[in-house]
């Protein structure tokens, strides 16, 4: 952007206003820019910025929607740190994110490398992204039935192998890994495609040089692909981690947080508090804490991975 305006200014200044040669042009330019940004800005203001401010305000109140909010200072935040369900929800969410992100990133990298180095078939690429085209809720329900302990097809197969029925969604220890892997299945193709796009940008001659030097595919992955992919990988990770922390729909249509609190991820807890129990003030406080955590995680990730810089020439 900076480059564009620097090029544009001299031409515009020659048209008038001798005293402040570029003020007129730059104002007009700014107005044009604003006009282009306006729709997005309006959407951001109305649907994100304003609700966020309201949410922060509600987090200091007791509020049930039907009566005016009552200011309670830091009470909600104090209650939050004594709330065992909140603590459990944080743990469960972190477990979910860890399983989901690690499996998804590793698999996506593998698929992307295969797409990049082995085949460039558009057909294969579209197959890879297929699960992402199915609605989340549909995927969740399908797996919910397929993984039923008694009448699910998965356990039918396991039974033939002599394995006792596994309650994938019902076992308190398996519920979160199951939900995390179901979501990995749905998102891995899309993530792979993003990474693949990043790989395509890596100059081809680097690989040719590598091959001339006798490097194996394995070595080239670690020495060429991964380092040069870093900015893209960083961006993808920030997006997927933030998205992962907000897992909700799969839980909502399958276990609804259960059994017990085994799959009560933080977003579901917020929904439960606000829309089932009408504790909008307290739910807002939990949301604010989640917001702060996510902002911090994203910031740390970007810093650690030097996402703003590229190693490609």
């Amino acid at each position, binding site marked *: 952007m900076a480059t564009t305006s620097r090029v544009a200014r001299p031409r515009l200044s020659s048209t008038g206003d001798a005293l402040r040669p570029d003020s007129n042009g730059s104002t007009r330019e700014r107005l044009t820019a604003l006009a282009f940004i306006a729709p997005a800005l309006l959407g951001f203001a109305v649907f994100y910025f304003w609700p966020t401010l309201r949410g922060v305000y509600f987090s200091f109140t007791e509020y049930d929607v039907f009566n005016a909010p009552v200011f309670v200072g830091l009470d909600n935040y104090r209650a939050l740190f004594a709330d065992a369900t909140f603590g459990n929800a944080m743990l469960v969410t972190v477990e979910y994110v860890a399983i989901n992100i690690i499996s998804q990133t590793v698999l996506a990298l593998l698929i992307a490398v295969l797409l990049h180095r082995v085949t460039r078939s558009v057909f294969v690429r579209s197959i890879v992204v297929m699960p992402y085209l199915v609605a989340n809720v549909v995927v969740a329900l399908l797996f919910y*039935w397929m*993984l039923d302990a008694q*009448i699910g097809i998965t356990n039918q197969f396991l039974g033939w192998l002599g394995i006792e029925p596994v309650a994938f969604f019902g076992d308190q220890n398996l519920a979160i890994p199951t939900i995390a892997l179901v979501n990995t299945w749905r998102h891995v193709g899309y993530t792979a495609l993003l990474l693949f796009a990043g790989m395509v940008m890596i100059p081809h001659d680097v690989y040719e040089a590598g091959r001339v030097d006798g490097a194996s595919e394995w070595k080239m992955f670690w020495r060429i692909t991964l380092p040069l992919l870093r900015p893209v990988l960083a961006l993808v990770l920030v997006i997927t981690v933030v998205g992962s922390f907000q897992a909700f729909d799969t839980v909502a249509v399958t276990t609804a947080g*259960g059994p017990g609190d085994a799959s009560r991820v933080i977003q579901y807890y917020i929904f439960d508090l606000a829309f089932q*129990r009408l504790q909008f003030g307290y739910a807002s406080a939990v949301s604010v804490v989640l917001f702060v955590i996510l902002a911090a995680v994203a910031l740390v990730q970007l810093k650690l991975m030097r996402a703003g810089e590229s190693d490609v020439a």
Partner: protein
Amino acid sequence: MGTKRRIARTVAAFTGVTVLLTGCASYGVDPGGDENSGEITYWMWEAAQLPAYQQCAEDFHAANPDIDVKIEQFGWDDYWNKLFTGFVANSAPDVFVDHTSRYGEFASRGLIEPIDDLVAADGIDVDAYVQGTAELWIGPDGKRYGLPKDFDTIGIYYNKTMAADAGVTDEQLKNLTWNPADGGTYEDVIAHLTVDQNGVRGDEPGFDKSRIQTYGLGINSSGGPNGQTEWSYLTQTTGWTYMNARAWGTEFNYDDPRFQETIAWWRGLIEKGYMPPLSFTEGGSQDQQMQAGKYAMVTEGSWTLATFAGLEGVDIGLAPTPIGPSGERAAMQNSLADTIFTSSPRKGAAWRWVKYLASAQCQDVVARSGVVMPALQSTTETSKAALAETGLDITAYTDQIDNGTTFPFPAVLNSAEVNATMVSAMDNVMAFQADPSSLTAANEKVDALFR
């Protein structure tokens, strides 16, 4: 200097924002209006009942051309979320089907209209409804919020073929006894109907409880705060009650040994291999499991009659709940009613529709549809005849009413909070993460909500 100004600007902005945030919303419930005609919206969740009520709406419109009734139906899960947003946005339906577990909350927030004066003015006889149903709609403030439209109780569905193969007769199933110590003949039958993968029955030597083909008894969930279809038919026969009142109580009895013993016995069925672990409840529903031959018996509510009667490939029978230590059976009875939204601009027309829904004309139509049992006593025979066409012996349900062995659904205030605590506590007990004695601590938490 720059920093100072920035701080000042931030403070100013923050103050401005706070003023904005606090100053622009209006709260409280719109009082609505009493218009006596026009179009009114009516919501219900039960799809199977839609045709009958559509018929009622048409008949009503024919008799009252000045009122149009628009019926909308949403599934149970969406229903309450939609209703809630409707309340907030002042766009809730004028009249909607309400549930005893929910209306206390609505009533205490002034969202639904009490109808005592209207009932008195129009001379409606509340004794004409099936015993116990009208009282369910007297709210926490002692006011009446609805007229019962239908009622339900609890019974046992069993796989007739499996029972016959096991040599269990219908007569036996109709006279089951139960106690929390050894489970009585109820447990004997459950054990005998359980079959492992080698074909060995639960009460035979060599029974392998880790490899089950068919469980004697199914499980729906841990039952949460009320165990409506799961355990309430047992706990009630021990003399146990939920709380210190028929409804809207403030002190709860989940710490009572009779309650905890019953839950311990029920959970014991899992250990013995006669009932699936709680983890198996995530997935298919009880009717699907029964159709697949995984369960020989399940306890369910009468609202599932059409579902179970319609299961293909299995021959289903219906038996009453067992006779407990009290010497009697017990079955929870619940009733639905139509309530009026306080902010409706057409409450006059809404009441005329509600009155019609609870009248003999409409309830007769509902009775003949044979999907649910209407609450008006005069329609009971019609309803019994229609339901008998399902081939199921519905006396298992209706005898409980006729013999006075039903007890009301335990309606409570703070139901969402009570639910959150008790579902979690009961889940942990049934998943063997905690002992039944842990319910004492849960009871303390629930009691604390009402102090």
